[in-house]
Structure formats: structure tokens, C-alpha cells
């Protein structure tokens, strides 16, 4: 428990600093209202609006832990949203529509996983295929229109609330907990990390890398489907052009801010989700503080650079050398000639 906390400490500190900064410019930032049976306020808003990126980040963390990357998640959001909206609009009812959307996400993940694990295409390229063609597929489903629907039960998933808390918050928190439990309470997480560190070695050690890789991409597809459902339910319509547009980059950013290495290996879902919240706090915070939203991207870029510098394997070596040099300065120099060279 202590170790887990220490792992996410930098993210929590960053988040706290950002929230404090926003509070300086917008004092009501931390205020939470209870009105009409639901909580409202900037913090609740951050938690709710961050839901799609947080969900994508959960799946993306697993993919990145296997040394892969999934560029298609934003597009998969559009496809699954379109599929769900289409099912609702043609009178399937909520249950089957949700199932269809989730199944669509799984199929997209299966496609990516097969390209990566069986055919052996680089993850960036393999998922680029679905990324470029996927919006076309989504537009094919919606026939180029914004497919609107009116179904209270479905839109409840996007804009409703349960026990005064907006439903999207429940969905992403539960998903993150479920995946974290699945990974850490079983050996799965360890196996995923093993694949990321050295795929052929892990295969030799008896891990079924192929199946596990496919499963990881399917998990990413499933998370993207959940995000797509939320996005679609929120606006009560499927917008094939704009749903999830460029969210894959935000999701990757969230994972990187979460301190997970793009080179695979050890991962932390909690840190990634915190990373997503950091991104959303910047977005909302800049708006509330009255800064022009133009600064948003520059701040994100600065944040990424900082994380990169801290994470870099080369920097670790520099730090080590610096510390050793400082130590040498403090300690008396060894007598010339006696030190073994």
C-alpha cells in the first residue's frame, strides 16, 4: 500500500499544485454545490469531463506496458458511438445497443491485436490503419449525418447521476478499479509487464504472448467503447467526424504524465488515471482562470517535456554522476597512489 502510494505521489503533487494554482485565480474552484439531487461544481465537472480520457488511459496503459501503442482509440470511440446510436435509433432498446457498442469495440481491438500479435506489424502502424479508415467506417454507419436519438435511459449514461454523482464518474472509476484489480490481484499484470520488457524472452518463459497481446488490445477497444458510449450519450447523438477526435493523443499523454514508460514494462493504472485528471484540470482550470485557452497546448507541451526529462534513462545517469561528484567534493580526496585504479 505504501509503495503504491509512493508510486503515484508525483502525480498527486502535480494535481494538488494545479488545483491550488487554479484556486488562486478562481477561488470557487474547490466549491461543491448540492442542487436538485446532484452535486455540481468545478471539481465534479473535471471528474465528469475527464471520463473519456480516463477510460482511454486505462486501456492505453496496458497497451503501452506491452511496448505497444494504440492510435485508434479516438476513432474506435466514434465507431462504437455510431454503432450504439444506430442501434438505439433503429429501436433495439438500450441493452442490445450497449452490447452492440461494446462488441464493436472488442472487434476493433481484436483487429488491432491480430495485426500486432499474429502478423507482427509495428503497433503504431497497425493501429494507424484503423485510425485513418475508422472515421470513414463511422461515417458509413451514420451515413455522414449526426445520428441523433431520444432515449432517456441511454443518455442517462452520459448526463444522468446516481446518488448525486454523475454517472460517467462511476463508469471510469469502476473500470479503472476493475482493470487494476484484474491486473494486480492476478498474475496478469506481471505477464503484461514481462511482454513489454522482452517479448521473445517472455514467450520462451512460457507466456502465451500472442493471446495476451490480443487481449490487451481488446481491453483497449473495450475502454474506447465505454468512452464512446459516454460521449454519444452526453450529446444524444453520434458525431462520426468529431467524437473522440485527437483523444488518442490526450490518452497517450495521460499515460506518459502517469510516469509509465513508452518503452514498456512496469505500469500503474492509478497513475495514468491521475494523469488524465491532470490534463482535464489544466483544460478546465485555464478556462475558469480566464486565461485564453490558446495557452492550453503550450502548457501541455511544457508538462510533457518536464516528464520526459525526469523519465529519461540518460538523465538518470547524469543525476547519478552529479550526486557522485557532489559526494566526492564533500569527502576528502583519496591519497594519491593508494587508490586502486
Amino acid at each position, binding site marked *: 500500500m505504501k509503495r503504491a502510494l509512493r508510486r503515484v505521489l508525483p502525480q498527486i503533487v502535480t494535481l494538488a499544485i494545479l488545483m491550488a494554482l487554479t484556486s488562486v485565480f478562481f477561488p470557487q474552484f474547490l466549491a461543491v454545490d448540492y442542487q436538485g439531487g446532484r452535486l455540481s461544481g468545478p471539481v465534479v465537472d473535471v471528474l465528469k469531463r475527464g471520463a473519456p480520457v480516463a477510460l482511454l488511459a486505462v486501456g492505453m496503459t496496458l497497451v503501452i506496458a506491452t511496448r505497444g*501503442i494504440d492510435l485508434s482509440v479516438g476513432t474506435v470511440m466514434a465507431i462504437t458511438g455510431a454503432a450504439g446510436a444506430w442501434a438505439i435509433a433503429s429501436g433495439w432498446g438500450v441493452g442490445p445497443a450497449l452490447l452492440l457498442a461494446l462488441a464493436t469495440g472488442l472487434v476493433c481491438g481484436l483487429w488491432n491485436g491480430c495485426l500486432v500479435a499474429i*502478423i*507482427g*506489424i*509495428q503497433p*503504431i*502502424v*497497425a493501429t*494507424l*490503419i*484503423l*485510425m*485513418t*479508415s*475508422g*472515421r*470513414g*467506417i463511422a*461515417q*458509413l454507419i451514420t451515413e*455522414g449525418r449526426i445520428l441523433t436519438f431520444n432515449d432517456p435511459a441511454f443518455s442517462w449514461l452520459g448526463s444522468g447521476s446516481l446518488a448525486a454523482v454523475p454517472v460517467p464518474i462511476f463508469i471510469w472509476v469502476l473500470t479503472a478499479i476493475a482493470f487494476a484489480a484484474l491486473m494486480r490481484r492476478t498474475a496478469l499484470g506481471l505477464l503484461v509487464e514481462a511482454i513489454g520488457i522482452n517479448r521473445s524472452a517472455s514467450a520462451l518463459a512460457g507466456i502465451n504472448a500472442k493471446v495476451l497481446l490480443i487481449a490487451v488490445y481488446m481491453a483497449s477497444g473495450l475502454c474506447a467503447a465505454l468512452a464512446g458510449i459516454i460521449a454519444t450519450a452526453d450529446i444524444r447523438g453520434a458525431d*462520426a467526424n468529431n467524437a473522440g477526435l*485527437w483523444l488518442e*493523443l490526450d490518452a*497517450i*499523454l495521460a499515460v*506518459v504524465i502517469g510516469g509509465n514508460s*513508452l*518503452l514498456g514494462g512496469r505500469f500503474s493504472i492509478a497513475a495514468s488515471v491521475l494523469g488524465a485528471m491532470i490534463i482535464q484540470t489544466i483544460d478546465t482550470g485555464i478556462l475558469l482562470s480566464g486565461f*485564453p*485557452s*490558446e*495557452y*492550453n*497546448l*503550450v*502548457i*501541455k*507541451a511544457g508538462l*510533457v*517535456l518536464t516528464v*520526459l*526529462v525526469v*523519465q*529519461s*534513462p*540518460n*538523465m538518470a545517469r547524469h543525476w547519478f554522476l552529479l550526486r557522485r561528484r557532489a559526494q566526492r567534493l564533500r569527502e576528502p580526496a583519496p591519497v594519491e597512489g593508494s587508490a586502486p585504479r
Partner: protein
Amino acid sequence: MSVNPRLYPLLATIGIFIAAYIVCWLQFPYMLSTRVAGNLLTDNAYLGIVAVGMTLVILSGGIDLSVGSVIAFSGVFIAVVLRETGLHPLIVFAMLLSITTAFGAAMGGIIHGLAMPPFIVTLAGMFLARGASYMLTIDSVPISDPFYEALKDAYWLMPGKGRLTFIGILMLLSVAVGALIAHRTRFGASVFAIGGGEHTARLMGVRVGPVTVGIYAFSGFMAGLSGIVFSIYTGSGYPLATVGAELTAIAAVVIGGTLLTGGAGYMVGTLFGVLTMGLIQTYIVFDGSLSSWWAKIVIGVLLLLFILLQRGLLRVTALRA
């Protein structure tokens, strides 16, 4: 007579382009006019130029996600500077190209110095360039400069009344220069060596650091040039322009037969990759009844085909060796 297996993807690219053109021509005989050919070059000039830079980056096994934002930044920078000052456009071009080249070089330096994946470094560069263009302006700024009008209207009338525009010629020149750099210089050989394996390249005596900086500086320069061309083409600077152009450029490079793992490919292939994608758009315009989303799907299918072809070739050559 045996053909070098490395040439297969290039030949496939050119073959598919010619076959596609013939299909288009059978359906719409007018496709085979110099007018269509001229427009194909003009409309895809900016993409072709940026794809040349991207080809070099991908040949080295890297990736540059920042180029789309850099193109938008270039347009906005030119438009704003021309509006605010009375400088001659050529001076502004020189300023811009030095900025984008330095920007690319800085990214290359970070990639090498921090030993971080190019993907995430250039992603930060993408945010930075897009954010910088937002900070200059959030509106579309028109460019009204007599020199610009002259550049826009400069063309060579081909037989058949097709117009080979200045920017079209510039793209063909960039491809030629890119091909020279990639295939005929020491720098180009180093790029291929790094793409084949960085560790091996280092053991061979390639100075990986300076070459990496040079690669991304070249890509930044090409993105700046592409931004200039794009601003001539649209006559304005708009911070939201060319979102996602980097992915289109990557797709063009892959369709052009360059191996995404680096180390193998031809600059000329990229030209045909760009033209093939342009041809799909032109076909959809000619047809009139097809929806624009088919372009995306067809490009996706082409991407898949080429990647599968490359995997197959790799397997064949591995079996032979």
C-alpha cells in the same frame, strides 16, 4: 535478370498508381488530360513536400508528429508578420525557415540527448507548434501581398492547357533534392544506417547525434517549406489548418513503399504515394456520387495492403538469406 527485392515495394507503388490511373481513365476519359495532372500536383504540393521530410525521418526509424502543426504555424506566422510589418515576403520566408529548422533540430537534440522515443518528443512538439500558432492569432488571417499573388498565379502552361504551377514545380524539386540527399550523400547513407539499427550504425562509425539532429532539422525545414506552399495555395494563415496532416504524410510514405521500421525505401516512392492518395480524392470528385468517407476507407485498405506486402517481402528475403 533478377530485380533487387528492395525495389518490389517501389515497383508495386508505381504499378498501383498506373493501374488506378488507367481505371480512372477508362471511366472518365478526361482524367488523362494535363489539366487534371497539373491540378493533382498543385493540390497535393504541400503534402508532397512535407512527406519528403517525413520519408527521411521514417528511413531513420523515427517519426515526426509535429509537421502538421508546424505547417499551420508557418501559415499563421507569415500572415501575421506580413500584416504587422512591411517586410518583403522573401525575408519572412527566410525567418520562418530558420525557425522551423531550429525547432526540428531542437526536437532531434532532445530525442538523442534524452534517449526518448521520437513519438512522444514530437508529440510535445506538435502541441507546442499548434499552441504557438494559437497564441499568434485565433482567426484566419488573409494574406494580401502583390508578391504572393504573383507566386500564386505563376505557372507554366503545359500542352493541353494544363497548368504546372509554381508550387507544383516546387514539390517536384523537393522530391528530387530529397532523393539526392537520401540516396547520394554521406548524410543519407548515415540515415539508412541508423534506420537499419542504431547500435550497428554507431559501431560503423556513424555519428548518431549530429545525424539525428540533422534528420529532424531537415523535416522541420520541409514542414516550413510546406507551410509556405500551403499559405500560397490558400492565401491565408489559419491556426486550425492541416490538423492531422502528419498522419496523412505518414500514410503517403508507407504507401510509397518505405519500411516503417526504417532502413529501406525510396524518396520517389513517396511522390507516388502522395499522388495515389490525391488520385483517390480526384476520382471521388469526378464521380460526384461517392461520399468523401470512401477516401478514408480506401486509404486505410491501401495502407494495410502495403504493410502486408512489406511483411511478406521481409519473410521472403529472410527465407532466402
